[in-house]
C-alpha cells in the first residue's frame, strides 16, 4: 500500500452513519451522521449542566485550524539549523526554550528533539494511539493515526519510508521513536545543500510536516 494514496475505505461505522439518500421532494434538513448526533447530544447535556462553555469550543477549533500547525515546528527547525547555541539548548533541554517561544501545552509538555545526521534517520510513531506534538505540528494527518502506519513502521521502517518516497541507504541507520503519553518527539531533518546564507524564514519554508515526523525530507531550495 502507499500512504499518500488516501485511505478512504468505507467502514461499517460510517456506512451506518451515512445520511439518508432517498428521493428528495421532502423538505427537511439532512440528518448528520450518527456520531455527529451523539457529539451534539453530549455538548447539549454538558452545556445545560454548566460544565462546558460552547464559545470555548469554537475558540479551540479556531486555534487548531489556524494558529497551531507545522509552521511552528518549521520555525524551530530553521532556528536549530541557523543558531548553534539554540541547537545545543534544544538537544539538551528543549522545554525552557519551547516555553519561551510559546510552543508549549497539551501534548507537548515533554518534547525530545532528535536530529537526522548523515549516519542516522529518525522517524516517529505512536503505537499506543496517536500521540503527536500538537503545539509544534498541529493535528496529526490521517495516515499517522492508521493501524497500517502504526504497526508497520516499527516492523519494517525502511519499507514504509520507501513508500513515502524516502529511500534510506543501507549504511544509514533508521531509528524509530515510539511516542508515549508523556514524551513526544520532533525530528530535525538534515539541512539541504544549497541553503547557505538563507535566513530563518526562507529555511522554514523548506521544512515540511512529514520531514519533522521523519517520513519526509526537507525540500531543496530550488524545489
Amino acid at each position, binding site marked *: 500500500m502507499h500512504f499518500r494514496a488516501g485511505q478512504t475505505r468505507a467502514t461499517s461505522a460510517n456506512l451506518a452513519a451515512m445520511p439518508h439518500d432517498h428521493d428528495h421532494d421532502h423538505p427537511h434538513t439532512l440528518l448528520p451522521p450518527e456520531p455527529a448526533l451523539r457529539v451534539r447530544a453530549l455538548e447539549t447535556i454538558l452545556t445545560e449542566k454548566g460544565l462546558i462553555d460552547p464559545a470555548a469550543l469554537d475558540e479551540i477549533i479556531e486555534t487548531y485550524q489556524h494558529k497551531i500547525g507545522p509552521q511552528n515546528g518549521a520555525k524551530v527547525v530553521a532556528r536549530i539549523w541557523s543558531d548553534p547555541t539554540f541547537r545545543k539548548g534544544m538537544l539538551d533541554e528543549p522545554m525552557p526554550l519551547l516555553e519561551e517561544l510559546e510552543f508549549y501545552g497539551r501534548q507537548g509538555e515533554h518534547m525530545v528533539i532528535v536530529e537526522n545526521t548523515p549516519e542516522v534517520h529518525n522517524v516517529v510513531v505512536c503505537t499506543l494511539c496517536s500521540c503527536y506534538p500538537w503545539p509544534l505540528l498541529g493535528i496529526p494527518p490521517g495516515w499517522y493515526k492508521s*493501524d497500517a502506519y502504526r504497526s508497520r513502521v516499527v516492523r519494517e521502517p525502511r519499507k514504509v519510508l520507501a513508500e513515502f518516497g524516502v529511500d534510506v541507504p543501507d549504511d544509514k541507520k533508521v531509528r524509530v521513536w515510539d511516542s508515549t503519553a508523556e514524551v513526544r518527539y520532533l525530528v530535525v531533518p538534515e539541512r539541504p545543500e544549497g541553503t547557505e546564507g538563507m535566513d530563518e524564514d526562507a529555511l522554514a519554508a523548506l521544512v515540511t510536516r512529514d520531514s519533522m515526523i521523519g517520513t519526509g525530507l526537507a525540500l531543496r531550495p530550488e524545489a
Partner: protein
Amino acid sequence: MSRPEPIFEAPWHAQLFALTVHLHERGVFDWPQWTKDFGATLAEHRLSGDLNGGDDYFNAWLATLEKVLVSNDMAPPASVASMRDAWEQAYLATPHGKPVRLGD
C-alpha cells in the same frame, strides 16, 4: 509541496476534538489517563479490522469520551440517548436551510 490536507475531515471530528480538549482544560480528566483509555478503545476496535485513521479513529475517540463521561456521571447513557433522539427529531422537523434548534 502537495495540497494541504484538511485538518479535520468532518465537522463532528472538530467538535468532538474541541469538546475533549475543553473538558481536559476544565480538569475533568488528565491527559495521560485519556491517552491510556483512548489507546484501549482503539485496541478493542481494531479487533474488527484495521483502522484507517479517519472516521473510525474519531468513532473510537467518541466511544472513549462517552465512557469517561458515564464513569464520572456527567452524561449518563440514558440522557445521551434521549438527547440524541431529540436532535434527530429537530433535524427532521427543520425545513431545509433553516438553523436546527432543539424543540422544547
